[in-house]
């Protein structure tokens, strides 16, 4: 097993007691990337030279006894939706191909402050729109467990990078499940924080009221460690909440006393893959065995969540993506006659099909005469969904469910059927609409070896309890210790 496939907490330990150096670790990750990323497709940009320099500098500082940040020397991969001033940022789109931003996202600054080694930018569905990373303009990402299956999305690159041992930690973003679902498909831990927990400054916006940045790791402790670095108030984001960041990692060993787990019968109905159902039920049994109380709850409006999401998110996206007009940065076509044609031809040429579909959906929903029926109605439904959860969390600490109806799907399986693709988001979307934290943790494998995740949701700003509940399951299982084999053909 290569060094960088160890959990982050173990690596931090080895770095601090001198068993290994950041340069050794970084080289090991780069070597894995060289060997396997041709098949996996996790990275859009590998920052080999600057990563080595950063690693050497941290090693020197460590040798000199200087104080170091909490992630000192640990390679971290960053989803290409966060702007970085020394690495290109494309959002998986031809529109931004070749663009290097003049500034760092708040979360990237936090990583640098923590002395993380930024090893590269990871692949994603174009502008984070998609559930398979097949909407990347630069090719798909495959799950390292089965190379003919997708890594999930939109943060497929970050999930696959951690799973494949290209980096012990990675950062993603989640608008409707884009951290949790690829975590499930790649067999790693992925956490979407409460809305406002992590600053969105420098996160290229898809749907502003739903987007949130969060961690990927091999285990719950790694996710807690990275979340502690990413979270916190930022004056540059008006929706960032000024609340202290608890020491998530410190309490993990402590089980949640009298843990109450809610399950919603609707989540176990038609369309759920039997192997996924089995994995979730097995996880619930584990919790019962630990003394948890599992009870049924009602989320009466959750059946409207997909419809609600696909009005709110595209509406905001149509506005957020209007700035890509070929005037100030990004791609501008030479093929135009006049300003209006320059706009339409540049956007027509540089955006992919799914992005165009969502821009059209959102533009329509916000148009005069339709606004009340669509956007405004969706916002009302959203409030009802939020109320469902507040009521549910009066009785339970976490809500358990599948992450996705199936394990990782084959490449191309859903691309021709956008509606099926949208429906596959049903389990994850509500957390974004309600602003709640959610985590996906490894909970088993299908018979043919594809990972299956368990989703736990908690009340807003109770990530500490959510992580403790997740750690309870992890201590009883060893799914998270399994290593992908890069099986199958990268067709």
């Amino acid at each position, binding site marked *: 097993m290569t060094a960088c496939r160890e959990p982050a907490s173990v690596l931090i330990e080895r770095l601090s007691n001198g068993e290994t150096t950041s340069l050794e670790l970084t080289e090991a990750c780069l070597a894995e990337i060289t060997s396997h990323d041709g098949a996996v497709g996790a990275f859009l940009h590998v920052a080999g030279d600057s990563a080595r320099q950063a690693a050497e500098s941290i090693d020197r500082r460590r040798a000199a006894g200087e104080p170091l940040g909490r992630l000192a020397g640990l390679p971290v991969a960053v989803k290409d939706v*966060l*702007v970085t001033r020394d690495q290109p*940022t494309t*959002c998986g789109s031809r529109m*931004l191909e070749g663009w290097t*931003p*003049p*500034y760092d*996202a708040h979360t990237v600054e936090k990583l640098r402050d923590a002395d993380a080694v930024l090893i590269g930018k990871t692949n994603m569905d174009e502008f984070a729109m998609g559930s398979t990373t097949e909407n990347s303009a630069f090719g798909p990402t495959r799950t390292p467990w089965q190379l003919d299956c997708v890594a999930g999305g939109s943060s497929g690159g970050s999930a696959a990078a951690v799973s494949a041992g290209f980096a012990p930690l990675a950062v993603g973003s989640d608008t409707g499940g884009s951290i949790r679902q690829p975590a499930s498909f790649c067999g790693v831990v992925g956490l979407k924080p409460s809305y406002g927990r992590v600053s*969105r*400054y*420098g*996160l*290229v*916006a898809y*749907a*502003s*009221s739903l987007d949130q940045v969060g961690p990927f790791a091999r285990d719950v402790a790694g996710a807690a460690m990275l979340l502690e670095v990413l979270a916190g108030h930022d*004056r*540059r*984001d*008006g*929706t960032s909440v000024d609340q202290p960041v608890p020491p998530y990692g410190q309490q993990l060993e402590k089980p949640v006393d009298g843990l109450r787990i809610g399950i919603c019968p609707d989540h176990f109905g038609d369309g759920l893959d039997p192997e996924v159902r089995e994995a979730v039920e097995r996880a619930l049994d584990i919790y019962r065995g630990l003394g948890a109380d599992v009870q049924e709850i009602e989320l009466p409006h959750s059946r409207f969540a997909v419809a609600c999401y696909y009005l709110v998110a595209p*509406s*905001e996206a*149509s*506005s957020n993506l*209007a*700035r890509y*007009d070929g*005037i*100030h*940065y990004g791609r501008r076509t030479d093929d135009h006659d006049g*300003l*209006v044609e320059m*706009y339409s031809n540049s956007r027509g040429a540089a955006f992919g099909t799914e992005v165009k579909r969502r821009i059209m959906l959102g*533009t329509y929903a*916000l*148009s*005069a005469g339709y*606004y009340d029926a669509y*956007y405004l109605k969706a916002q009302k439904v959203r409030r009802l969904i939020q109320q469902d959860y507040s009521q549910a969390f009066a009785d339970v600490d976490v809500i358990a469910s599948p992450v996705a109806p199936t394990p990782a799907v084959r490449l191309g399986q859903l691309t021709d059927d956008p509606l099926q693709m949208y429906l596959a988001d049903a389990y994850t979307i509500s957390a974004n609409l309600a602003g709640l934290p959610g985590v996906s943790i490894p909970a088993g494998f299908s018979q043919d070896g594809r990972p299956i995740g368990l989703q736990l949701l908690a009340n807003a700003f109770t990530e500490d309890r959510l992580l403790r509940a997740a750690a309870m399951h992890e201590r009883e299982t060893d799914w998270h210790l399994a290593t992908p084999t890069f099986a199958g053909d990268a067709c």
Partner: protein
Amino acid sequence: MPSPTTIIGLEVHVQLQTRTKIFCGCANRFNPDEPNVQTCPVCLGLPGALPVMNRRALELSVRAGLALSGTIAGLTKWDRKQYYYPDLPKAYQISQYDLPFCQGGHLDVDVEQENGEIQSRHIRLIRVHLEEDAGKNLHDESGRGGDSRVDLNRAGTPLLEIVSEPDIRSAAEARRYLEEIRLLMVYLGVSDCNMQEGSLRCDANVNLEISNSANESIRTPIVEVKNLNSFRGVEAALVYEISRQQREFEQCGGIYADTAKQTRGWDADRGVTFAQRGKEEASDYRYFPDPDLLPVSFSDEWIEIQRAELCEPPADRRRRFVAELGLSEYDAGVLVDRGRETADYFEAVATACGDAKQAANWVTQDVLRELNEREETIESFPIDAQGLASLLGMITSGDLTTRSGREVFSSLMNNQGGDGSIVERIASIVEERGLSAVADSGALETVIDAVISRNEKAAEDFRGGKDAAIGKLIGEVMREVGGADPNAVRETLISRLRP
């Protein structure tokens, strides 16, 4: 046929005088010479950048709303107004749609009517909202088809939009309304309202209500005249547009093929309005609440703090100068309209010397003349209010003649009288030139007797009824006695010659 009624509503844009832009820390400063230097990821609209509301912009906005007698909303929010234009880097403007921070309000404006009478006009407001300004497109004007350029220094400047009801009834009234808004905003310290720099701009909506031959009342299609950036421009464009609409009405007999609102530009050089864009380009702005900015609620307490920061508005001040200080409406207007600092200066002089009318005469004539000649503002005027008040006090008490007072004033303006305070310099100038009024009537009478005896011919002429002859005698006395009061000299001479 009754004469047409003019219906005008104005949308006035006022750039706020904040140190930084509305959503970022970039300097808010007019700077056309160095394009794109006052920019950052936020006002450039770069991917990932987010807006954060400038607290000072909210304060100034609410003060403006209160001064316009508007109702401050308990809850207000910002919306995205979406359209594509190169000077708008996010392709949406953050503005306010259905919950502006201020609704209603009004402004009373004194307008001189055609018959010369002054009429007070009550112009109601629809709303006031706070938005961001766009950048500026710079087109190649050489005609050689060069590239257009975009300067985003202005992008993100906080901008108030003050929308009036269509209560304005003439071009002159529109101009007065705009002048009064400008004065109020400058008084409040909300804006410098520098029209050359574009910190006060205006769009005018205008149409006419005319009776046709069948005596039916017809409204001409509304025209929005865009980008009026001078007082003269507003008035001239509206005068032109009113007569254009009237001509058009006469030509078509009030039957219009297209009654949709039209947008026209103002060509100041040619003095005409011109059609700008057709309705086929009419936009659907797809307004929706900006998810990056939380709604803002103002507490009553906070609103009262802002109200306490308000100064006396110009209209109230004019009224007070007339009612309490006994000034003419004209003088009150000159002093107040000149700006808050000038009116403050006048009031300080009037209070200190106790003679408001004399203070008004001196400030409106002598002081403003000097300022105009020197092209300076009152803040840099070399004679402070205490100094001028002490000079005027000496005239009122008879220690100095008005003529000598003017001499002292101009000496002060020429930096004479040493290095002391103005009061000390006045004393030294009076001393040096012997300008002190001669109070000792005995001394004056001796001189007068001597002058009469030296000028027998003139004295004889005056005794014989030639009034003009006294002038030579007065002149000679005045030359001998510096600082003599010419009226006293005249009276003494008359009592001697025509007892």
